[in-house]
């Protein structure tokens, strides 16, 4: 990389892409106020789009915690989203809980499951971890499809028109209600990620673990413990988003909420925005979500965004591994792309 001189050539590459220089507090405040006021100006349709974008920003940020900050490529993260959705449905249908009960249950079940999975799985590294988490997610989906309690292949409808804490919401849960629910969750997730990973010692431990696990161990960091904490935290967040999502769409099916594409999208959003940064998943989340919604809206093609997304992943990995954030910070310039292209052309010399 040609930026080695600027950064002194020290530190790993990901350190250099840590985040955009932090925007001043008043800008953040302004954005927050705008987000709170947004549903007043937008109609129900665009509010729906906005709440979807908020959900994906939060999910991408949760994946970024384990994938970007800790460097563990979790290809089964979507399982927790699905489990959160299904557990909420089971809580409301089978156990008769109000939504908040189901929401809390989703968090608890997500945490316990994540811990149980974390203990053996996090011993694996690299590709082994990726395959294992992927197999875990697919096994979860197949299990949900044959069980009765999840509705099996029939799916499950959630009670509608009920209140969150047993008390009815005026006018029933609406787009606006869910917009604010997602807003609180997404802002909470981003704030938590910022404080934990950029402002606390915890963040340095996690990054040390990512950059060199053995060295981190030698420095006295209990890497096993740190890995588990990050994994459980990120999984619980995914489960909570799944819970609100289930209450919002009111009909859930294992092949939808546990689909591999849920994980795929989280990975892509974090990667496209910039791994291991706070702003990356936000920018990537908005970009990919809008790409998906707008392509299905204007092209009338619901599957066209798949090759688009796949193509984007390949291009990002090839030419801009630090994502949108890297481009904005000038780490991926046209010179870098040219160097990359020249190196790539060299690989085609077969003689």
């Amino acid at each position, binding site marked *: 990389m040609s930026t080695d001189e600027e950064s002194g050539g020290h530190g790993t590459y990901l350190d250099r892409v840590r985040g955009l220089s932090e925007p001043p507090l008043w800008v953040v405040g302004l954005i927050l106020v705008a987000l709170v006021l947004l549903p007043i100006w937008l109609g129900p349709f665009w509010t729906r789009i906005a709440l979807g974008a908020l959900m994906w920003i939060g999910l991408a940020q949760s994946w970024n915690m384990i994938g970007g900050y800790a460097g563990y490529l979790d*290809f089964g993260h979507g399982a927790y989203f699905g489990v959160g959705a299904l557990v909420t449905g089971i809580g409301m249908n089978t156990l008769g809980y109000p939504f908040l009960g189901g929401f809390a249950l989703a968090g608890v079940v997500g945490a316990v499951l994540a811990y149980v999975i974390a203990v053996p799985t996090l011993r694996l590294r690299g590709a082994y971890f990726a*395959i294992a988490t992927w197999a875990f997610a*697919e*096994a979860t989906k197949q299990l949900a499809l044959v069980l009765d309690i999840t509705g099996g292949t029939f799916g499950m409808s959630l009670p509608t028109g009920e209140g969150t804490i047993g008390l009815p919401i005026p006018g029933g849960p609406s787009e606006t209600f869910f917009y604010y629910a997602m807003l609180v969750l997404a802002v909470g997730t981003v704030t938590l990620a910022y404080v934990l990973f950029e402002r606390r010692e915890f963040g340095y431990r996690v990054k040390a673990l990512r950059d060199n696990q053995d060295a981190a161990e030698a420095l006295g960091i209990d890497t096993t413990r740190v890995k588990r904490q990050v994994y459980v935290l990120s999984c619980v967040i995914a489960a909570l988003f799944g819970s609100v999502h289930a209450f919002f769409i009111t009909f859930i099916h294992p092949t939808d909420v546990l689909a591999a594409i849920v994980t795929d999208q989280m990975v892509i959003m974090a990667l496209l925005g910039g791994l291991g940064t706070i702003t990356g998943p936000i920018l990537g989340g908005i970009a990919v979500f809008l790409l998906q919604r707008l392509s299905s809206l204007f092209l009338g093609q619901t*599957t066209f965004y798949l090759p688009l997304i*796949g*193509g984007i992943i390949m291009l990002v990995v090839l030419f801009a591994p630090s994502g949108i954030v890297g481009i904005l910070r000038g780490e991926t310039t046209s010179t870098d792309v040219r160097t990359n292209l020249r190196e*790539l052309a060299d690989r085609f010399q*077969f*003689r």
Partner: protein
Amino acid sequence: MVDVGLLLQTVINGLLLGGIYVSIGVGFSLAFGVLEVIDFAVGEYVMLGAFAGALLAPTFGSEGVFVIPLVFLAFFGVGFLIQPFIHHVTSGDRPMPVLMGLVFTFGLAIFVRGSVLTLFGPNNRNVPSDLLVGGVTIPGIGIFPTVRVVTAAVGVFALAVFMYYLYNTRGGMAIRAIAEDRTNARLMGININRYQSIAYGAYAGMTATAGVFIGLIFTANPGMGLQYTAFAFFMVVLAGLGYLPGVIVSGVVLGLAQSLTAVYWSGEVVLFVLFALIYVVLLVSPSGILGKGGEHAS
């Protein structure tokens, strides 16, 4: 009482299926050996092969068998040209090369699956064949579909040719040397680009050819790839990453497991059993149940 006839028939059917799985697993294992990247797109080559069979067969007088050499050559070319991209992502001064390689093939898989889905729709297609109809009767046991017998025979034949190339020619030696140690192989004057591309091309060609046969036996649809990615992972995880002889055993185990579970339990749980097994085997013994896999994927 166990019906001995049915049991025998199921076991033989499983062995016949195992033959074709072995050729997928061996190619996949080799691709991992030379590129040190787990190819998430493996199932998509199977899907593309089956699809190519279904689309091209009508131009060959509705005979899927004639498509096979064409598919092998075409996908050899495709793999040959894709390899430099993967190699580029996993080498040089890039950070987290293994993870970037994984994500790249992951993107490739989504791209291929999405393109086929968008271009041809989600429907099932058949690979027609008039040559491979009817059955082969084994007296006292039962009748076996010709398709399956030929599939297994071709799988074994492809494997034999491939192993001959790998162990008895200079090119095969170069590929094995690269799998052993890329840097040293380069120092010995081996053109890494060429032989890695040949290996990846052979893998893509073999896998797509296996896909045509799978299309002949079952059906072709854009979503089928995921299942075969799982099968390939299952085989190499069971065998140990990069350990070729182990793949032969685990391919047969996979064929048997699939046909026995479908006959004696339920077709619905096959995938659950498989995924659960991959997960457990990875945890208990990451170097495979035979304990001979490489550990350099971390």
